[in-house]
C-alpha cells in the first residue's frame, strides 16, 4: 500500500470531467421542470407593508408564488438560526429574499417579478460596524436587542487570554501599536448557486445540491420543510467550486419549498450578478494590536482588539471571530496574550465562511505587526521571527500545547527558495526546543 505514497494518481472522476459528462447541478433538466426566481428587497432595510401578486399572476406561464406562509416548518435558518428563509415583515439587506415566483421558464419569472407590487417602507440602514456598535444606533433587524452578536446571553465581547497581558506589557522595553483591516471578498466559484428538487416515486424530496458540506445543511433543510430526514434524499458530491461559499444554504431551501408546494421538479439558480451581490461573503475584519517586546527581540505580550462585520445575519461569523482570535498571534510564543473579539451586525448581505475560515484574517495582520515590531526594536525581521517561533511544548492563546511545530523549518525553507542567506545562529535553531 505504501508504494502509492508520493505518487500522482489520476482522479477517479477525471475521465467524466474531461468528457463533459460530469453532472453538475445545473445540468439536470427534468421533464415538466419549473423555474423559480426570488423577489428581492429593493432597499437596504425596510418594513414590508404588502406584496400584491395579482398582476404577476396573470402572466402566461406563471404557476404560482411561494411566501413565508408556505413554509411548513422553521422560518429561520443559517448557522446561527437567525436568517429569514423568506422575509415576512422586515428586510435587513438589499436583495434579501421576500418571495419566489415559479413559472415554466426563467424569462417568465422575470416578467412576472416586474409586475409584483411590493409596498415597502424604507428605513435608515447602518453600514459601518463602529456606527452600528454605538448605543442608540438604528437596529439592523427588529428582532435584535443591539447590533452586537451575543456569544453568550448578554456577552458581546469574546475574550480569550493566556497569562496576564498587563504584566507582559509592563515588562516590555517597547510597546508597538498597529491597526489592520482586511476587506470583503466573494468566493466567485465558477458555478453559480443552483439547486434542483423534486419528489420521487416513494414520496421522498430529492434535492441535487452543490453543497460543500451536506451535514451542515440537511438538518436545517429538514426543519424548514418539516420533513423527517428519511423523507429527504440530499444528493451532492459534484461542486463547481465552493471556497467556503457553499457551506451556507443559498438555493436548496427555495427549490425544495417550490417543489413541496407545486409537486413538480423545480430549478432555482442565481445569475452571476445575483450570486456576486447577494451570496454570503468573507466579511471585514479590523484588528488592533498592542505588542510588548524586549530589547533582545523576545515578545512579552500581545493585546488584540478585533471587530468583524457579520452583515445582516450571523452565518459562520461568530465562529469566525473565535477562530480568528485563536490564530491572530501567529505561530509565536508569547507568554501573555489577550484577544477581545466582537461581531457586529450591519445592513449588508451576510458574511460567512470562506477559505481557511478566518485564520488568515488574523495571521496577515500579525505578520504586518511583526515587521513593525522588528523596525521598532531595530533587529532583522527574520531574527525576530526565529527568536519567537513556536517550539514544541509552547502554548497558544486558547491553551493548546504545540506539538510538531514547524515554523522555523518552514521559514528556513522559504528563505532558501527566496535566495536569502540566513546567519548560522538562526539556522542552528530547531522547533524541537528553545
Amino acid at each position, binding site marked *: 500500500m505504501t508504494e502509492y505514497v508520493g505518487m*500522482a494518481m*489520476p*482522479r477517479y*472522476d*477525471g*475521465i467524466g*470531467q*474531461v*468528457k*463533459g*459528462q*460530469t*453532472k*453538475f447541478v*445545473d*445540468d439536470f*433538466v427534468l421533464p415538466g421542470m419549473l423555474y423559480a426566481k426570488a423577489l428581492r428587497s429593493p432597499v437596504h432595510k425596510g418594513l414590508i407593508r404588502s406584496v400584491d401578486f395579482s398582476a404577476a399572476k396573470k402572466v402566461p406561464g406563471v404557476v404560482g408564488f411561494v411566501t413565508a406562509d408556505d413554509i411548513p416548518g422553521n422560518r429561520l435558518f443559517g448557522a446561527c438560526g437567525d436568517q429569514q428563509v423568506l422575509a415576512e415583515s422586515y428586510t435587513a439587506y438589499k436583495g434579501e429574499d421576500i418571495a419566489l415566483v415559479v413559472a415554466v421558464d426563467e424569462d417568465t419569472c422575470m416578467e412576472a417579478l416586474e409586475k409584483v407590487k411590493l409596498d415597502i417602507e424604507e428605513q435608515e440602514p447602518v453600514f459601518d460596524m463602529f456606527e452600528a456598535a454605538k448605543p442608540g444606533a438604528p437596529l439592523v433587524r427588529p428582532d435584535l436587542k443591539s447590533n452586537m452578536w451575543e456569544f453568550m446571553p448578554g456577552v458581546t465581547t469574546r475574550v480569550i487570554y493566556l497569562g496576564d497581558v498587563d504584566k507582559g506589557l509592563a515588562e516590555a522595553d517597547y510597546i508597538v501599536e498597529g491597526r489592520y483591516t482586511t476587506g470583503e471578498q466573494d468566493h*466567485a*466559484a*465558477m*458555478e*453559480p448557486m443552483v439547486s434542483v428538487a423534486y419528489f420521487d416515486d416513494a414520496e421522498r424530496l430529492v434535492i441535487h445540491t452543490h453543497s460543500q458540506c451536506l451535514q451542515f445543511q440537511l438538518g436545517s433543510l429538514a426543519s424548514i420543510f418539516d420533513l423527517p430526514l428519511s423523507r429527504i434524499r440530499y444528493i451532492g458530491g459534484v*461542486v*463547481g*467550486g*465552493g*471556497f467556503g461559499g457553499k457551506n451556507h444554504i443559498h438555493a436548496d431551501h427555495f427549490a425544495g419549498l417550490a417543489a413541496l408546494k407545486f409537486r413538480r421538479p423545480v430549478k432555482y439558480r442565481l*445569475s*452571476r450578478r445575483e450570486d456576486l451581490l447577494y451570496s454570503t461573503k468573507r466579511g471585514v475584519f479590523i484588528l488592533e494590536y498592542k505588542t510588548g517586546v524586549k530589547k533582545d527581540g523576545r515578545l512579552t505580550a500581545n493585546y488584540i482588539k478585533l471587530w468583524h462585520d457579520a452583515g445582516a445575519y450571523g452565518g459562520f461569523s461568530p465562529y469566525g471571530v473565535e477562530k480568528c482570535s485563536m490564530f491572530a498571534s501567529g505561530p509565536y510564543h508569547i507568554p501573555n496574550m489577550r484577544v477581545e473579539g466582537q461581531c457586529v451586525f450591519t445592513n449588508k448581505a451576510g458574511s460567512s465562511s470562506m477559505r481557511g475560515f478566518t485564520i488568515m484574517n488574523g495571521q496577515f495582520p500579525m505578520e504586518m505587526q511583526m515587521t513593525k515590531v522588528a523596525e521598532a526594536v531595530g533587529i532583522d525581521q527574520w531574527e525576530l521571527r526565529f527568536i519567537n517561533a513556536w517550539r514544541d511544548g509552547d502554548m497558544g492563546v486558547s491553551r493548546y500545547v504545540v506539538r510538531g511545530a514547524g515554523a522555523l523549518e518552514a521559514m528556513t525553507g522559504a528563505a532558501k527558495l527566496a535566495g536569502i542567506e540566513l546567519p548560522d545562529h538562526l539556522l542552528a535553531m530547531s522547533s524541537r526546543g528553545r
Partner: protein
Amino acid sequence: MKQILSFTLNGAPVDVIVTATETLLDVLREKLGVTGPKRGCDNGDCGTCTVLLDGEPVRSCLTIALTVAGRQVLTVEGLSPDGDLHPLQKAFHEHGAFQCGFCTPGMLMSAKALLDTNPNPSRVEIREYMSGNLCRCGSYEEVVEAIQAVAAGEYKE
C-alpha cells in the same frame, strides 16, 4: 416568434425550435441536453461555455442561436465521438489540469482551437490564447503543461 434552427452539432444534423432571443448556450443545454458547455457568467466573461463554431472558439452564451444556422458546432461531447479520448482530454486528465472541473469543457475547446491553428505554441502564446478561460481553482499551470505536452506529441489520437 419561433423558428426552426438547423445546424450540425458534433457531426450530426439537428433541427430545433428556437426563439429569436435564445442563445446557443440556452439551446444546447436546455433544449438539446448537451450540458458540456457550462453557464458560468452568462455574460461572456468566464469562458466555460466556449464551443467551436466552424472551428473558431465562440462564447455560446453570447451567440444568438439563430446565427449558427447551417454551420458546424463542436462541443466537448464531440471531442471523443468514438469513445477514445482526444489527446487534449488525456493530457488534461493525466496532468490534473482542473480541480472542480467546471471550466474544463471550455478550456478544452479553446485549447483545441489553439493547437488547430498553432500546433507548436510557446508558453507565452498558450497563456495569451487561454486568457479568456477562467479557472477559479487555479489550475492554470497544469493547463499550460497539458497543452504543451500535446503540442510536443506526448499524446496521440
